[in-house]
């Protein structure tokens, strides 16, 4: 599993790309991607294009990120999900908490 983060030019949006297995083994990497930022971020994007699996600890990590980003006022988009991953997010009711595209 690997996590990489790109800040877009105006630095108000960060895109975090996940590849491979998204599970607890990547929690530090994932956390670092959005916590260690010098500037405030308005929009978070999680790119799942290359994510293969995710499990409930990954869901937990997404929730922690949501808290960090302001809880109910957080603006987090989860994009490019494979159908099965989208399904898992749906089953977990995450569509209510995140913008799953």
């Amino acid at each position, binding site marked *: 599993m690997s996590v990489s983060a790109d800040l877009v030019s105006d630095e108000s949006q960060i895109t975090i790309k996940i590849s*491979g297995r998204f599970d607890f083994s990547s929690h530090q990497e994932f956390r670092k991607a959005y916590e260690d930022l010098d500037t405030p971020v308005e929009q978070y994007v999680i790119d799942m294009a290359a994510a*293969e699996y995710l499990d*409930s600890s990954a869901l937990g990590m997404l929730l922690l990120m949501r808290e960090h980003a302001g809880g109910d006022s957080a603006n987090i988009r989860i994009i490019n999900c494979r159908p099965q991953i989208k399904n898992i997010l749906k089953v977990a009711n995450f569509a209510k908490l995140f913008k799953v595209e």
Partner: protein
Amino acid sequence: MEALTEYSGEEGLLVLLVDDDRINRILLLALLKRGGCQVIEAENGLDAVELFDTKDPDIVLMDVMMPEMDGYEATKVIKSRERDKFTPVIFLTALTDGSALAKCLECGGDDFLTKPYNQIILNAKLRAMLRIQQLYRTMEAQRDQLLYHQSHLEHEHRVAERIFAKIVPTGCLDDERIRYLLSPMSIFNGDLVLATRSPSGSLYVVLGDFTGHGLPAAVGAVPVAETFYGMVAKGFTLDAIVLELNRKLRSCLPTEIFLAACLMEFQTDGEGVLLWNGGLPDVFMVRAEDQTCERFSSNSFALGVIKEVESRPNYVNCRPGDRFVVFSDGITEAESRDGEMYGEERVEALFNKFIAEPQCIFSELLEDVLRFRGGGQQSDDTTMVEVLCAKNLVCESTFTNTGDSSLKVATPWNLCLEFEAPTLRTVDPLPILMHMLGEIQGLCEYRESLYIVLAELYNNALEHGILGLDSKMKQNVDGFSAYYALRQQRLSELEEGRLRFEFSHEPAPSGGRLNIALEDSGSGFDFENKVGHMAGNMGHSGRGISLVSSICERLVYHGKGNRVTVEFVWSDDD
């Protein structure tokens, strides 16, 4: 007097002496004999031609004016009958008239000898002619050798072509969504186009262009095809395939040879494409609905150059009817007669020109490149692929050919695996289980669902049952980290504990039923009170079990809560 044997061997040169004047013949005969030559004589052109045919002389001395057939005519005939050897004709002449001398050369003569004859000049002229003859022979021998090698090489290429066609099959390139251009000798140009379907039905396409030509590039195609087909069939993701291709090519190819390539995965719904471009010209995409064109530049090194290649693909949202066009630099670097390159600007201009009729772009681009080149043959190194996004157009032949359907016919089987503490410390059982289930029953379409079921059950059994961790720790960010740090610590120090997976599979009306049981050596938990609370809970724990419940038909805890069973039902008419 010096002999001429250096050119003719022990027997001496065989000279055909043609002259109707007997005195002349006697004179020359004496000079030639003294030079170590053998001589045959003819009195006119007609006899000369006959002797030339039957005796095959090394050199001809030819008078001009003769009865029956004159020297001009005889020389023309002789020169026309020269087969694969050069026979010099030297005219014997007293002529001083320039145009007559010129006529001697025009009809095929090689030199003159003017009267009065002189031994030194005769020998010098013979020697000069023989040198030319020698040169001619060397050249012919070399030409023959080249012809031999060429036909040998062509033969080898034909054989290799047949072998490669078997080792490097083009997969499902005959899919009606795919159009491609690949020269018949492409394998030796180092270009390749492969296409196949994954178990879940996605279409994978690769276009590759090796640096260098010939055999070294061709050899590289073998591991590429094997890796590509093998990994796609096993359901690996695009970035995993890119990484493995890079690793393999880097280890087996010499430094200067690498593969510029584009790998694409087309989802079955026709609405998403993963695209990785390493070192090829921009990939073009035409959106059918709003008639726009997008380009995807290479964002990585070519394969086989560096150790760690950027493997993350672009995800492109698309609609059925959109099309992707990929080509090698044979298009962009096509040269006009003035040495100008076709270039990406012209490609883009062409796409824009035909944006309203995208189905024409493929052939129009080829035509335009051909025109730009200024006619002539289609160059061998033009390789191009177009893929149309479409919904679930499954290429039946692929499945029947490879027999690699994602769902194998449901069969009854049982599997039991037990992991003790030393194994649990070092081995992650999830990939092993996923692999075994895939091997036995296929089920690739259910990979993600199965993974989450196994992962949740396993993590619960390990973390709570065996390692005694409390989910409450995960309430906040720091707790989350602490929880997983503790998990790691306790696991590495684990001395006692056991996990037992039991799988039993049976055919069901439209697919199969997989019963999974997992038992741990822990003390269990009060499931009757807890499970009820977990459903719908959006806190920081308990989500896993509600996920599993939503995927499986039935989730039941047994005994003191250290054994859980689920039923996973799959159907093949999905």
